[in-house]
């Protein structure tokens, strides 16, 4: 396999239930290096759960997750389900993933700059001066240089989400995970965040993006995956998924999204 088509992440045959609710039911997804994948699907179809299983915020009941070719080790847990077998491995692999949450989840006791340098310094053990230099470059890129000494509570939602993207970029991730990064934002703030994500896509970063912004997915994604009840119902290039979906459910979902 040549380097350009290495798998940044491979998820195979994932099952996950919460109590009696089966959320993921045999889901397989993979992302090659440099690929931008958009995940769409109706509410409750398992999109967030999939992203959370990729970085083990949620541990799948069965199936495997591999990050950059390395399978995450899991072991059975007493009382059902599984749990991480090797926390050190998980912490190490998580540093390859930059997660951006729907509700930002910036650390409220740290300024924007401190949020960005936190993981590089205290997880990756990089020298502070170097981390700050790099953070300033990233903050410039997301347009937050002038807000670097503000606390999360002092800036707008759009700025908070851009800060959260900067925080994710700072760990130099091989894969960025976005869980509906704009759906908690006022409509007038969506654009500034999408602009930043678009720049990242153009740079060739590997990204998995859960979104309800169909137009944006069509524009930035190399591949679109439509989830339905915890399975991949339709998958292909945006032109196919949006233009000529094979699945009737996918067609209905897309037309309902375009109408609203």
């Amino acid at each position, binding site marked *: 396999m040549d380097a350009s088509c290495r798998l940044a992440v491979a998820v195979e045959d994932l099952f996950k239930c919460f109590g009696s609710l089966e959320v993921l039911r045999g889901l397989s997804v993979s992302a090659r290096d440099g690929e931008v994948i958009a995940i769409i699907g109706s509410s409750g179809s398992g999109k967030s759960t999939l992203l959370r299983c990729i*970085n083990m*915020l949620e541990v799948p009941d069965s199936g495997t997750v591999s990050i950059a070719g390395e399978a995450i080790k899991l072991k059975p847990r007493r009382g059902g389900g599984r749990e991480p077998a090797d*926390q050190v491995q*998980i*912490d*190490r692999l*998580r*540093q390859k*993933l930059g*997660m951006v*949450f729907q*509700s930002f*989840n*910036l*650390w*409220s*006791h740290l300024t924007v700059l401190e949020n960005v340098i*936190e*993981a590089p310094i*205290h*997880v*990756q053990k990089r020298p502070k001066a170097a981390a700050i230099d790099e953070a300033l470059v990233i903050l410039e890129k997301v347009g937050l240089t002038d807000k670097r000494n*503000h*606390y*999360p*509570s*002092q800036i707008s939602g759009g700025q908070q989400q851009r800060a959260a993207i900067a*925080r994710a970029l700072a*760990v130099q991730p091989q894969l960025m995970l976005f869980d509906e990064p704009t759906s908690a934002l006022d409509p007038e703030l969506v654009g500034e965040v999408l602009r930043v994500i678009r720049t990242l896509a153009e740079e060739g970063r590997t990204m998995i993006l859960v979104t309800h912004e169909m137009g944006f997915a069509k524009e930035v994604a190399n591949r679109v995956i439509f989830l339905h009840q915890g399975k991949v119902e339709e998958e292909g290039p945006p032109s196919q998924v949006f233009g000529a979906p094979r699945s009737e459910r996918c067609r209905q979902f897309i037309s309902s999204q375009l109408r609203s």
Partner: protein
Amino acid sequence: MLAGVPLTLQLAFSSIALGLGMAIALALIVRAGLRPLSWLAESYVFVFRGTPLLVQIFLVYYGLGQFRPELQEIGLWWFFRSPYYCALLALTLNTAAYGAEIVRGGLQSVPAGQIEAARAFGMSGLTLYRRIVAPIALRQALPAYGNEIILMIKATSLVSTITLMEVTGLAHKLISETFRSFEVFFAAGTIYLLMNFVVTRLIDLAERWIAPDLKRENRVAMVPLDTR
């Protein structure tokens, strides 16, 4: 009466320092939920918050005094013979119980999403506690804890009942000599007020330093009403 100020402050701050250590331990035990241990910690908090401090002071000083031979045998009599140590012990045990509740509330208030974000970046264990959970809990708990400090300074006046000559003890003595209750107690009250004025200022500075982004009104709104 001013001569009693050092003893008052010494009792207040030693018990607060020792009690805070205990409070954090108690809160972590309750949070960890290890059955017999967390149950004990919860009962401790319940008992010490549910009974008057004055009764606790009497129990330690007079109550345990009844067991003098046994205490002498195990070599602890020097401690329980001293009204100062007994007062310090009772105050510490009492503030630890209140403090445990404050710390527990602080820990509980840390948003799950922020802990999750830290995990997602590969933080775990002690680093997660030290870098994320503890500082956020501290921001939330500080106003309530400042309140606790003020209550403790006032609560030290109760130790005058076991012969300690702090501000209130000296006030009693002065009254028995002069019979001027109003003036003397008025002056004593003023001394407590001045001490708490300074302490309030210091707490406010600490809050400003630890949570510079929170507005004062929001911080004060988080202080629970609590009197002893």
